[in-house]
C-alpha cells in the first residue's frame, strides 16, 4: 500500500511536469493554432539558464529561478519574432516542421554551449523529505506539485478574467476578426510565446533536482507531453494539467506493475486509445466543419 502511494506521488510529480509542458503547448495552440514541438527544449533551456545563474554565477536560488524564468520569456519572444511570425499563415504542417527544426537547433546549441554532461544545481528542495507516518515523500517532487497548482490557478484566472487573456482567446478563435477588433495581434502572439516559454522554464528549473540538467531531457519529456495535451483536449488549460497527471500516473504505474518495456510505451498506447475513442480529448470542444 505504501509502495502504491509512493509511486502515486512520483507519478503525480511527473504528471505535473508533463502538465506544465502540455500547458505550454495548449497556450500557444490556443493563440495561434501552432503546436510548438520545441516546448520540451524550452524546458531544457530553462534548466540550463538556472544552472548558469545558480551554479556558475552563484546567485541565490530564488533569484536564479526568477532570472531563469525571465530569460526564458525573452527567448520565447525572440523565437516567436524570428521563426514563427514570418510563417504565420502557412499550412499548419510547415509551421510544425519549423518548430521541430527549432527544437533540433536549441538542443544542439545547448549541447555546444554547456556541454553534454549532466549538470547539478543546488536547490532548497534537493534533499529533505516529508514524513507522514511511514510514508516518505521527497521535497523535490512535492515542490513540483505545489508549484504547478499555483501556476495553473494564476494562468486560469489570467485567461478567463483579464482583458489580455480574453484578447488571447479571441486571437486563437479567429485571427482576422481579432485584427478587425483592434487587438494588437502580433504583440499578443509574442506575449503568448513568452508566457509559454516562461511556464516551460519554470518546469525545467523545478525538474532540475529530479532529473539533472542535460540536453536530451527536453526531447523525451516533450514528446511524452503530447499525449497529455491531447488527452486533456488541445484547447483547455485545466485539461492540460489533468491530461498530464493521468499520463504521469499511468506511466509510473506501468513502470512499476507491468513487465519491462511497457513504461515507455504506455503513454502512447493511452494516446492512441484516446484519439480513437474521443479525439477532442476530455475537456476539448468539437469544432464544426464549415466550407
Amino acid at each position: 500500500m505504501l509502495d502504491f502511494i509512493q509511486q502515486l506521488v512520483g507519478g503525480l510529480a511527473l504528471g505535473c511536469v508533463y502538465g506544465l509542458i502540455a500547458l505550454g503547448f495548449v497556450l500557444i495552440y490556443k493563440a495561434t493554432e501552432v503546436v510548438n514541438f520545441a516546448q520540451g527544449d524550452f524546458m531544457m533551456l530553462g534548466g540550463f539558464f538556472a544552472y548558469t545563474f545558480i551554479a556558475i554565477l552563484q546567485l541565490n536560488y530564488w533569484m536564479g529561478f526568477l532570472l531563469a524564468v525571465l530569460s526564458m520569456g525573452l527567448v520565447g519572444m525572440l523565437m516567436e519574432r524570428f521563426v514563427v511570425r514570418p510563417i504565420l499563415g502557412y499550412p499548419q504542417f510547415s509551421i510544425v516542421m519549423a518548430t521541430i527544426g527549432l527544437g533540433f537547433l536549441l538542443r544542439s546549441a545547448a549541447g555546444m554551449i554547456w556541454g553534454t554532461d549532466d549538470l547539478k544545481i543546488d536547490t532548497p528542495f534537493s534533499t529533505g523529505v516529508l514524513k507522514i507516518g511511514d510514508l516518505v515523500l521527497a521535497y523535490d517532487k512535492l515542490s513540483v506539485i505545489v508549484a504547478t497548482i499555483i501556476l495553473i490557478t494564476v494562468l486560469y484566472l489570467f485567461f478567463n478574467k483579464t482583458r489580455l487573456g480574453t484578447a488571447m482567446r479571441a486571437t486563437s478563435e479567429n485571427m482576422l476578426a481579432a485584427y478587425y477588433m483592434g487587438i494588437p495581434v502580433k504583440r499578443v502572439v509574442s506575449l503568448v510565446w513568452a508566457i509559454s516559454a516562461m511556464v516551460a522554464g519554470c518546469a525545467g528549473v523545478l525538474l532540475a533536482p529530479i532529473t539533472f540538467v542535460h540536453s536530451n531531457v527536453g526531447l523525451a519529456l516533450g514528446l511524452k507531453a503530447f499525449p497529455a495535451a491531447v488527452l486533456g483536449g488541445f484547447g483547455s488549460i485545466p485539461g492540460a494539467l489533468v491530461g498530464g497527471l493521468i499520463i504521469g500516473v499511468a506511466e509510473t504505474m506501468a513502470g512499476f506493475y507491468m513487465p519491462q518495456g511497457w513504461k515507455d510505451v504506455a503513454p502512447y498506447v493511452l494516446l492512441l486509445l484516446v484519439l480513437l475513442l474521443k479525439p477532442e480529448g476530455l475537456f476539448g470542444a468539437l469544432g464544426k466543419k464549415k466550407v
Partner: protein
Amino acid sequence: MRFIFKTDYEQDIKLLQHGGHWWSYGLLLAVLAAAPYVLGSYLQSQLVFVFIYATVGVALMILTGFTGQGSLGHAAFLAIGAYTAGYMQSRGFTFPVYFPIAGVLTGVIGAIVGIPALRLHGIYLLIATISFGFIVEEVLARWESVTHGNEGMRVKAVEIFGETLTRDSNAFYFLCLGFLVLTIIGTLNLMRSPTGRAFIAIRDSETAAKSMGIDLSAYKVKSFAISAAITGFAGALYAHKLSFISPEMFTLLLSIEFIMVIIIGGAFGLHGAILGAIFIVMIDPMLTALKDDVPGLIASVSRAFGTSAERAEQIREAAYRFGSAPGLKGAIYGLIIIGFVLFEPLGLYGRWLKIKLFFQLFPLYKRATFKRQKTYVKSERNR
C-alpha cells in the same frame, strides 16, 4: 511554373506533360545507368542510399504531398519492411518470395493504421503517427523471438535465381534504380488516374471532396496503404543495403529525415522527392568535409588576406573545433528545416521552377509573383 495550356482531356491524362520531358528524363536515366562503371564505390554506395531515400520520399509524397495527411511515422513502416525481409530470409525464403510479401504486409499494416487516422487530421495525425512509430520501435525491441530484440539482425545478401547480389555490387545498384523508376512511373500513373485526383481533392478541401462524391475513408485508407507498401519495399532494400538492422536505426529522427526530404525538395511534385533525397544523403559527407577540409581552407584564405601564420593557425583550430562539436548535425538539420520553411517554402524544385519562370518571362519577371498574400492564421479546425 511552366504554363502548359490544357486544351483537351487527352493532355490531362498523359504520363508526362511535356514532350521534352521524355528526352531529359531519358538522358538522366542513361547517366544513372552508366554511373556505376564510372564512379568510385563510395559514391555508388551513396547513390544507392539516394535511391532508397527517394523511394520513401515518393511514398511520403503520395501521403503528405498529394493527400495532405502528414505522417511522422514512416520510419516504422520502413522498419516493418526491413524486419519482414530479414526474418523471412533467415527462415529460408528467397528474395522473389519475401520482397513482395514485405511490401504487401507493410501495406496492410498501413491500411490498419489508416483506419483510425480517418478521424484525425492535421496535428492530431502527426502526433498519432509519432506514437505509432514509438510503439513499433518498442515492439521490435521486445519481440525477441522474431526480431532478436536490441541485438539486431544480420541480413544476408540478396539471392535471385541463384545469383548472389552483394550490397556493393552493380547488380544491387541496378535493382534499387529499377525499383525507383518503377515506383516513379507507378506514382505518375496513379496521379493521373481518378484515384490520384481524389487524393489531391482530399488535400485541398475535404468537405468539397465529400460533396463531389468522393468516399473519404476509402481513399484515405488507400493512400496510407499505398504509401506504406512502397515504404515497405524500400525497407527490404534498406535492410539488404545495411546488412544489419536493429531497432535503434528506425527512430523518430529517421522519420523526420524523410519529412525533410519532402520539405527540402518541395511538397508538390515527384522531382521534389528526388532532389530532397540527394540533399539529405549529401549532408553526411558535407559534415565530414566541414570537419576535415574547411578549417584548412579558411586558414589559407585568411593567409591570402595577409594575417600572420600563427593567427591563421588559431583560426584553423577554432574552425576545426566548431566542425567537430558533437551536436553539430542536429543544429544543421534544425537550421536547414527552419531555413527552408521560412525562405524556400516550395523547396528546391520550387526554386528551380521559379528560375525557369524568370528566364521564360525575362525581363518581365516580378518577385511578387510568389509573395504570400495571407499573413494571418486561418483556423484549420473548420476545414
